[in-house]
């Protein structure tokens, strides 16, 4: 990072020029891989695996997507899945951050709950989807529950790590200015933990998408998982791929969005735990 002063006298931070060039190069190489993949897929779909149930060329998938968009079917299913992800993520954020802050601020609380959280984090909780559907019924409630369960653990664990990793120096400054314990948590620990929380959110979003799809596979009347499930049942391979690719785009979009936020605040703190 270097500091430059612009004409109107404001100081701005800039990335080094070589960094930017590397970014373009990386982007170009990444796109090349995608293009090779899609061309290869098209060729194999057309000339090698010609059975339309096992594989379809990429162009058939695009065509199917256009048709589904025209019927409004794609939008409805995207909206259904995203709604469940949004509700589940918001709930997981509120409760996860609360738990994380409490864990960071109270050693006793952390020692009680951390082993549980770590165990749950490592458990493939998507396997709980069928029972959650039994509990909450077929519909959005059970999907929200799956998303919530998938998302809450990385958020809570990262928040707690962020709070505990608060620079001792920052706390000393606060105490030198006679901060109360509560002020230290509120004005120092929580802001200092934000980069960790954002990383937690990024990890959570990927899991949330897996959660919503699995929830929809087991029982739902709408959503991209439901779309994939019905396509599979009716051997409609192009539609199946439309569902999968749409999910990939959503997941990539959300992750990149959070990454951008992380990059912006990375000046705050050098390293963020994964």
């Amino acid at each position, binding site marked *: *990072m270097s500091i430059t002063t612009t004409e109107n006298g404001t*100081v701005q*931070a800039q990335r080094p020029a070589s960094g930017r060039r590397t970014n373009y190069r990386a982007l170009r190489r990444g796109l090349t891989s995608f293009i090779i993949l899609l061309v290869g897929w098209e060729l194999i779909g057309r000339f090698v695996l010609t059975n339309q149930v096992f594989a379809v060329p990429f162009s058939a998938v695009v065509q199917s997507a256009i048709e589904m968009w025209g019927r409004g079917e794609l939008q409805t299913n995207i909206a259904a899945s995203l709604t469940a992800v949004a509700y589940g993520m918001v709930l997981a954020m509120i409760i996860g951050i609360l738990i994380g802050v409490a864990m960071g601020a109270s050693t006793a609380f952390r020692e009680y709950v951390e082993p549980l959280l770590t165990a749950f984090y490592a458990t493939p909780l998507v396997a709980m989807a069928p029972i959650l559907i039994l509990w909450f019924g077929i519909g959005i409630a059970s999907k929200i529950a799956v998303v919530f369960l998938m998302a809450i653990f990385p958020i809570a664990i990262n928040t707690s790590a962020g709070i505990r990793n608060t620079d001792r*120096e*920052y706390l000393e*400054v*606060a105490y030198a200015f*006679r*901060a109360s314990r509560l002020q230290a948590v509120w*004005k120092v620990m929580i802001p200092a933990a934000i980069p960790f929380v954002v990383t937690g959110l990024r990890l959570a979003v990927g899991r949330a998408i897996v959660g919503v799809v699995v929830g929809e596979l087991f029982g739902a009347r709408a959503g991209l998982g439901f779309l994939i499930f019905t396509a599979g049942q009716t051997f409609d391979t192009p539609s199946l791929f439309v569902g999968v690719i749409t999910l990939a785009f959503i997941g990539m979009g959300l992750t990149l969005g959070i990454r951008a936020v992380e990059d912006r605040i990375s000046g705050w703190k050098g390293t963020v735990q994964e």
Partner: protein
Amino acid sequence: MIALELSHVSKSFASRGQSLEIMRDVSLTVQAGEFLVVVGPSGCGKSTLLRMIQGLETLSSGSVRVGAGEATTRGFVFQRDGLYPWRSVLRNVMLGLELAHVPVSEAKPRAEAMIDLVGLRGFEGHYPNELSGGMRQRVNLARALAIDPDMLLMDEPFAALDALTRENMQQELIRISAAAGKTVILITHQIDEAVLLADRVAVLGARPSHILDIVRIDLPRPRTLDLKRTPEFQAYVDGIWTMVTQAETETRVGG
């Protein structure tokens, strides 16, 4: 009136299973409104002493009494600035006022005045990672001044500044401490800075440190930079310099 009284202060740190004795039997009295400068070799425990006064570090034995106890407000200037990267310059300077529940309508103009004082007008909205080391150090200073403390505890406040800014800041500090009758305890490695600012200079010796000498600086006030060219000034500098270098050699020999 006594602003600060250290009696028989000793300090040891537990480090790698061993007890490291930093300071042995330091006693010192500072009058209200007095300007005390502490010099001594690197690592002898100056920062630790200041942190003990502020209550950031425990004492191994002895006692520290601050004039009116917690009622004496203290502005602390950290050796490493300790600015919050998530706060703008203005909000960093407002920190102490905010923690004391001073309403924003009152805190903001006060903070702005201090930012102006340290020559950072126009940088209120900037973030610490957009500032140079010297600029950060001045924010650190403004943050301590903003609470208008009875006592200023300053750990090498001007170390990162260029010569010109340093001299400006010294002049400001002389003015502020004289006008407001603040008690100041300042650590520095610059002996001419010590002589220019101090009513008394406490010279700390090598570890475990103790007070080698307290030199009263009988130079007229208000002091200006011209004073530095006088033989009296130079005599004080030479005397203290000799003591500090001697202590520094001891530190090296003593490991």
